[in-house]
């Protein structure tokens, strides 16, 4: 536990010394936010929710994209540690075996939360408003934390398995596109049959809808359970996968 904290402080220091990684993480989602609200937004028909502003509608999807681009740095940082000798040094020291991994996971969580806060700040400047109470915001935070942890463990697997620095971050690209095939940008009603079916049954739609309902103070319905099931399920599978890759990598280096 102490080992994990010591190592987390180390990688947080890395981020403090190159804060551009957090800014870069936030720039793509912010650019998308601007593009979709000010360029495409006027042409997008939200259907029944005509009184809802587009920035309010769009924000949850943008937040998920922020996390997806943020975790690419997690696998990149992990890859660099493995590449240099420092990981072997840690492994040859009397510390908790999984501490170096957990340190990267905690660092990822902190870095992503900061990037998320930046994006929310920009959204507020663009007119995003919510009257939701602390409990609803706590719900939003909780789901984002779960989602970040799930993607982080995927990032850990990618970083452990990568052969090059480019390969380490490459796994994030498909994740960046999933929100486009969901209710994040436009309602699914207007999509053709098979696309609509996919959009309504992939994790992003339920998570996006839940976040939207939480801060819009609407009834949550079934979505919240689907969203939680996806997040927790993904987290468990990603964690098992990462630990398996870790054990294999550590016995074969």
């Amino acid at each position, binding site marked *: 536990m*102490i*080992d994990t904290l*010591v*190592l987390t402080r*180390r990688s947080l*220091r*890395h981020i403090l*010394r*190159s804060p551009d990684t957090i800014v870069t993480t936030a720039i793509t989602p912010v650019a998308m936010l601007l593009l979709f609200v000010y360029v495409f937004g006027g042409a997008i028909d939200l259907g029944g929710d005509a009184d809802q502003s587009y920035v309010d509608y769009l924000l949850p999807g943008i937040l998920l994209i922020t996390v997806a681009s943020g975790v690419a740095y997690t696998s990149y940082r992990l890859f660099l540690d493995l590449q*240099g*000798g*420092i990981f*072997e*040094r*840690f*492994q*040859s*020291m*009397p*510390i908790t075996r999984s501490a170096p991994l957990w340190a990267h996971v905690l660092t990822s969580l902190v870095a992503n939360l900061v990037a998320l806060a930046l994006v929310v700040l920009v959204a507020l400047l663009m007119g995003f408003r919510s009257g939701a109470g602390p409990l609803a915001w706590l719900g939003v935070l909780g789901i984002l934390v779960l989602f970040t942890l799930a993607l982080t463990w995927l990032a850990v697997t990618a970083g452990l398995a990568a052969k090059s620095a480019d390969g380490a971050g490459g796994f994030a690209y498909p994740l960046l596109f999933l929100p486009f095939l969901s209710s994040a940008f436009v309602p699914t009603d207007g999509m053709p049959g098979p696309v609509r079916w996919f959009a309504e049954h992939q994790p992003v739609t339920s998570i996006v809808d839940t976040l939207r309902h939480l801060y819009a103070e609407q009834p949550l319905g079934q979505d919240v359970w689907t969203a939680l099931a996806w997040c927790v399920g993904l987290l468990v599978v990603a964690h098992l996968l990462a630990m398996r890759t870790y054990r294999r990598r*550590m*016995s074969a*280096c």
Partner: protein
Amino acid sequence: MTTAPAIEIAGLTKSYGDHAVLRGVDLSVPPGSIYALLGSNGAGKTTLIKILSTLLHADDGRASVAGHDVADQPRRVRESISLTGQFAAVDEILTGRENLVLVAQLRHLREPHAIADDLLSRFDLSDAGGRRVATYSGGMRRRLDIAMSLVGDPPVLFLDEPTTGLDPQSRIEVWRTVSELAGRGTTVLLTTQYLEEAEQLADRIAILHDGRIIADGTLADLQALLPPAAVEYVEKRPTLEDIFLTIVGSNS
């Protein structure tokens, strides 16, 4: 002081698929000595070091370090050793001092900052201690690397090719550092592909070839394996290294 061997290896084997890297290694390293493991690239030196430092499991045979079996008591072994791998295992983004403090904290030592300052001055890095390691020269990086391995005074130190890739001056700096260690009772097992390095540093030398130790002993023992030297008159020319060091004005 114990007289039991600091490192004891018997019948150690390791294969990667069909490729046998170690084919039965036997070696006994007395405490407080500098032992050089000499071998060409691919002879299995790094594999052996990784097994001894618990990073890799052997297929067969036994190895113990500081009295602890590497397979059965890996944690006890890790408490007794430090590994300086082939690539300087330092954190480039942190300063030299922060690197040392990090290791001291991971070893749960008291007063990590005092330990760091002490090692910085011992390794002539006090002035550079507050700078990021990315700005260090190759020799400084290696010295910091070795200093990090000395945090907590582990009785056994593994140095895997400590001078590969260093310029002649840095190499001499590292040599001086290593010979000082043995004076303090630390057991050092170092691997090298430079014959001169083994000759300069080691109390005993083992030659690893094709996965086996084919010769081991003191330099005199090894020399005795060859017929006695014939006396010849050879015009002594300075080596390029002598010239280089004279011209650049090395003070060593």
